[in-house]
């Protein structure tokens, strides 16, 4: 390596730290760095300055719905990952078990094909969630030709799992609602979206006093009150 080469790459270090090198240059510089102690020392000295730049932005409060969307996507993927790893009973096994034992009546389809009112049967099903958590105490389940729903109660919280959700428009999300007596309110962290297979999960943090959990399709960002008929409505026995 010539002194001229060294000086050339040393000049590029600030742009490297700022993400301002031309495409391909960063890889060349990294190759130089691997063999140049002086440049590595210089880079280590300057790097903290570049790393502080994002801290200089005015800190805003991230929209609550953003957290909801991200966590919903993560939960769906986590569920898929657990199902993929697990040798436990599959959803198919579960539904066959429910079909054998639980009275499930299906409501009429309303509007587009995926809008199904589920009047669910209630069953106790001994299974574990598979991640080291506590065993669910109650399973509430319903199914329909298009959308299937399973409600798992764990202490004060519950998890509603939907399958075969389709027909959701690009600018729509799913929103979970809870009914307490005559009052219908949006569940905490209520927005979620189905994955590419039509599976979706909503976590209901507070199940105290809840008589039913419902899901509607709402405009992106959610609504203050339901604006469409429910895709599913799962009664909950307290």
């Amino acid at each position, binding site marked *: 390596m010539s002194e001229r080469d060294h000086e050339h790459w040393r000049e590029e270090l600030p742009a490297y730290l700022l993400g301002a090198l031309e495409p391909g240059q960063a890889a060349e510089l990294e190759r130089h760095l691997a063999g140049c102690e002086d440049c590595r020392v210089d880079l280590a000295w300057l790097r903290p300055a570049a790393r502080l730049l994002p801290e200089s932005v005015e800190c805003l409060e991230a929209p609550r719905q*953003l957290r909801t969307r*991200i966590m919903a996507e993560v939960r769906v993927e986590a569920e898929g990952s657990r199902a993929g790893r697990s040798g436990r009973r599959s959803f198919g096994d579960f539904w066959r078990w429910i079909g054998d034992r639980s009275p499930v009546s299906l409501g009429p389809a309303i509007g587009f094909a995926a809008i199904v009112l589920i009047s669910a049967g209630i069953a106790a099903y001994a299974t574990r969630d598979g991640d080291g958590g506590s065993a669910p105490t109650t399973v509430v389940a319903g199914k329909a030709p298009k959308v299937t729903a399973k409600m798992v109660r764990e202490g004060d919280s519950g998890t509603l799992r939907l399958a075969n959700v389709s027909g959701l428009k690009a600018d729509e999300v799913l929103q979970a609602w809870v009914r307490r007596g005559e009052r219908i309110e949006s569940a905490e962290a209520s927005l979620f979206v189905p994955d590419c297979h039509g599976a979706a999960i909503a976590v209901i943090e507070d199940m105290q006093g809840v008589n039913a959990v419902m899901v509607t399709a709402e405009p992106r960002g959610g609504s203050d009150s339901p604006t469409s008929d429910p895709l599913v409505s799962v009664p909950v026995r307290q």
Partner: protein
Amino acid sequence: MRKRRGSAERLADEELMPLIGKKDVAAFEVFYDRHGAIAYSLAYRIVGERTAAEDVTQEAFVSIWRSGGRYDRSRGSVRSWTLGIVRNRAVDSLRGKSASAPKLAFDADALLEQRESGDRTDRDALRRETADEVREALDQLPGEQSKVIQLAYFGGFSQSEIATMLSLPLGTVKGRMRLGLEKIRTEMVRLA
């Protein structure tokens, strides 16, 4: 879930990442709650528009969820690694939108002002001491040094593009970047 979250809250970022690699939702939730706001703020600072900033932040965090196990301590703190991912996605988002527009048509000052303003309605400023100090250090930089650094980091422009935009020799842009970073670094040492 709440019990797992409580346990995760006691862990350092670097300890959360292996758990995220194992698809621990509670660990990821804690990680998001620690860094979501600054990530969104950075994305907003770069793309200058609320919906796009949300999209960038969501893409970045979901990508981290999918690749959490790949965090490498040698590349810095989890926070700086995360913000680096957000910054790159935000710049990609900007470049995607302006790909058909001639970048030379941008005026640097107007560009920076435009991205600093935007929709202020959701700006609940949660200022922190660190941010204030860095801003102060940036404010103290001579304008020409601050400008090239901000165009590079927040604007996503290459040094060649900045040179063309400001009608400066490439060597001058490189020199200003170095002088600016050196001054911030010296100020950091003074404040430490």
